């Protein structure tokens, strides 16, 4: 019996020492695990992103390289996410543009959950296909693009002149624009055709008004604006003037469902605007 008491006591003491040893190492272990949930969440988010988001936002989130399910290069209809103006700073440029007063994480999460403009809803609560944890995973993945390299590049803010004539005669563009390049910008780079339809009428407008006759229509919409000024202004400030007829009935707004960020996107290369105008209003 005595030997049993000795063995039992020693075993119990060793067990308590092992427990104490693990307790001593616990702060370090907890430290290693603190961000593990975020890490795994980002991993899961990257897969959901690859399967659901890349057709509009691009494989690397820059909205420049979008392929459809068969592997064809298509126009990116989404906004860039791997992008300075979305991710950098506590209050990023895009949050300011959208008058968002919450946190950046909430901005991304809410946009994914409930949609925004042409962005569909993703959270099952709003009729989307994703569970809450999946939406959170995608949001964590998108936010993970923030890096020093991304944020050290300055945000380009181009000052657009009020009048299109000042713009076209200004030093930043070669006038007149290149309508051929404009056609490419319309169909692919900025993805205008997705909502406004192909300019040759081969695919009809889906959401926004058809722009086939904008050269004549545009001149009569707003007093004191010719077609060129009207189109120029409407690209920069989509909510200022609402077109009367959309494919699904009277156009909604203000605010317009058209993304309001073409001013900043085209600001990277103002020549795009000149080419686009040349294409839309071409002789």
């Amino acid at each position, binding site marked *: *019996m005595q030997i049993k*008491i000795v063995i039992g006591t020693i*075993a119990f003491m060793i067990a308590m020492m*092992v427990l104490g040893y693990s307790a001593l190492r616990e702060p370090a272990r907890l430290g290693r695990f603190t961000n*593990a949930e975020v*890490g*795994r969440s*980002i991993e899961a988010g990257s897969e959901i992103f690859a399967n659901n988001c890349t057709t509009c936002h691009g494989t690397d989130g820059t909205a420049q390289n979008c392929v459809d399910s068969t592997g064809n290069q298509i126009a990116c209809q989404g906004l860039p996410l791997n992008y300075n103006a979305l991710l950098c700073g506590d209050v990023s440029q895009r949050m300011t543009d959208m008058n968002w007063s919450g946190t950046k994480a909430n901005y991304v999460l809410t946009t994914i959950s409930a949609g925004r403009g042409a962005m569909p809803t993703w959270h099952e609560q709003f009729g989307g296909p994703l569970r809450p944890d999946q939406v959170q995973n995608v949001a964590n993945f998108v936010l*993970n693009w*923030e890096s020093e390299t991304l944020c050290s590049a300055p945000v380009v803010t181009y000052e657009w002149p009020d009048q299109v004539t000042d713009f076209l005669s200004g030093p930043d563009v070669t006038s007149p624009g290149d309508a051929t390049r404009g056609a490419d910008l319309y169909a692919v780079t900025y993805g205008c055709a997705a909502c406004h339809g192909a300019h040759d009428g081969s695919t009809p407008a889906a959401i926004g008004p058809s722009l086939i006759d904008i050269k004549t229509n545009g001149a009569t919409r707003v007093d004191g604006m010719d077609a060129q000024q009207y189109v120029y202004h409407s690209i920069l400030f989509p909510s200022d003037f609402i077109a009367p007829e959309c494919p699904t009935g009277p156009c909604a707004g203000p605010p317009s469902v058209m993304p309001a960020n073409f001013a900043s996107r085209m600001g990277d290369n103002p020549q795009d605007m000149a080419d686009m105008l040349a294409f839309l209003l071409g002789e």
Partner: protein
Amino acid sequence: MATFVEQVREMGIKQAIVTKADDVVERLTAGMNINDVRAALRGDEPRRPNPRLRPHADGFWLHIRPSFYHTGVTNIYPTFRLGWLSTFMLVWETITGLILMVFYTPSPLSAYGNMWNILGNVPLGQLFRNMHRLGAEVMVLVVAMHMLRTFVTGSYKKPRQFTWATGMLLLVFTIFLSFSGYLLPWDQLAYWALTVFISGGAAAPAPAFVNENIMLILQGGPALGADGLLRWYLLHVLLLPLLAGIFFFVHYYKVVLYGISLPPGREQVGEDTAKRVPKDERTYYIPDILTSELMWSALATLFLVAGALWLWDAPLETHADPVVTPLHVVAPWYLSWSQGWLKLADKTLVVGFIPLLLVAFIVMPYIEVGKSRRYADRRVGLTVAMLFIAAMLVSNWMGSPEFRVQSSPDREVSIQVLPEEGPGGIKGIPYEHLTPGTYSPGQVIDGNPFLTRGLELFQSAMYQQSCTLTGNPQWTACTVETLDNGTRRFSNFFTTDAMPDPVAHLEIVEVQPNLKELILHYEITNPDTGAVSKTEWTRPRHAFSNYEEECRFLNKSCATD
């Protein structure tokens, strides 16, 4: 009795305190004073009347315990302490489970997050989760072994048939307790193991109306969801522990009533002398059995604490996803045999057979009435038992991933090198050693033993799924068969569906800060048509994901080991 103050006046403060302490100890032990306790621990003969019997007569805790055992059952053989260990495991699981319950909410919205909170935010959380999970598996093992030894020593025979029957129920409760806890983390492993199990239950040979309702009741809806999780949680923490507790006491009451049966050789055939213990064959509970039980408890505690800390890590896969079925859904090892049976026979047949088997086990001692418990007289019974165990082991192996349906050869390589879940293969390599670049199988990377080891694993996985038609020394030569439809099939020693002269490589790309993608590329040229098929398999790996931590444990295999 004099009050304490009076005692102090009478015999002085020191003697009064000693008397008071003696009194307290005697009350707590329900009859043994300090000297009695010390004498018991020293192994002295008890005084008369024996104070060591009073805790059994007057105390609550020892009331159900016999005051002495037959010395013939106090050695390791014949009990192997398995009954005591089963009880210990039940208590162990209750204590660790109660602690885990504090950090758990049974809702699909929070359950999975709770697991990460337990791992990353609760001091000793991982240890307790591992102890609970390891304890659950050990408990199934111990209870099953307890049943086996009861059979082998013939202890189920008259008059202990009912003890055996309640023991069978306790085995079932133990398995259900272990399995019902499976669902609670709400990860892929949990979700799909339960989904398969429930769909099995719904295949019972009964009218469709009954099966549909079984399914509805077990899942709480057309699919496993919030209601189902709540139900399995309540089963796990309330109903099953309650049933196990009740039947434990019924079982143990019968054990005490009939006594633990002596080793078969120690009594005449047909005799049951366990309750007639001669004076010189008595081993008293206090102190001998008690110290023995405490010793075994201490040893089991040590094993479970150390095991949970170093050997065995409870798995946690990705969040449960009803629309993504993992490539290989596996049952826990103690139910693996049923998965093996499902590969042999129709589902309805198997599901109908299992309850029949259980009933057969329960009624077995009432039908098998051979009087002798001696091994030599029970050659048929013991042979049948050994054959049954062998059949169960084979069934278990057939239910294991070793014996699964093969998917395409490149997929088989991929899930070995970069599994969907867990830290296996290359995923467990520390993040900083996953240098971006393109690597071929078996390549040696100077100064990077981790990646070198990973590529070695890639090479050996490829070797099993590849063969060569061109004499490439990397692979074994293809065995070529022409099928009826004219296509050719390429085999090697391991598989009948090998890749002929594959070109494969591993690509590591950094796609985001702290996030890399590990991509396996395969390129196979069809030797008949010349058509090139390219496939790839991508797994993301984040710097914070801490797979390395899991690799420390014996039950997780990583390329870094």
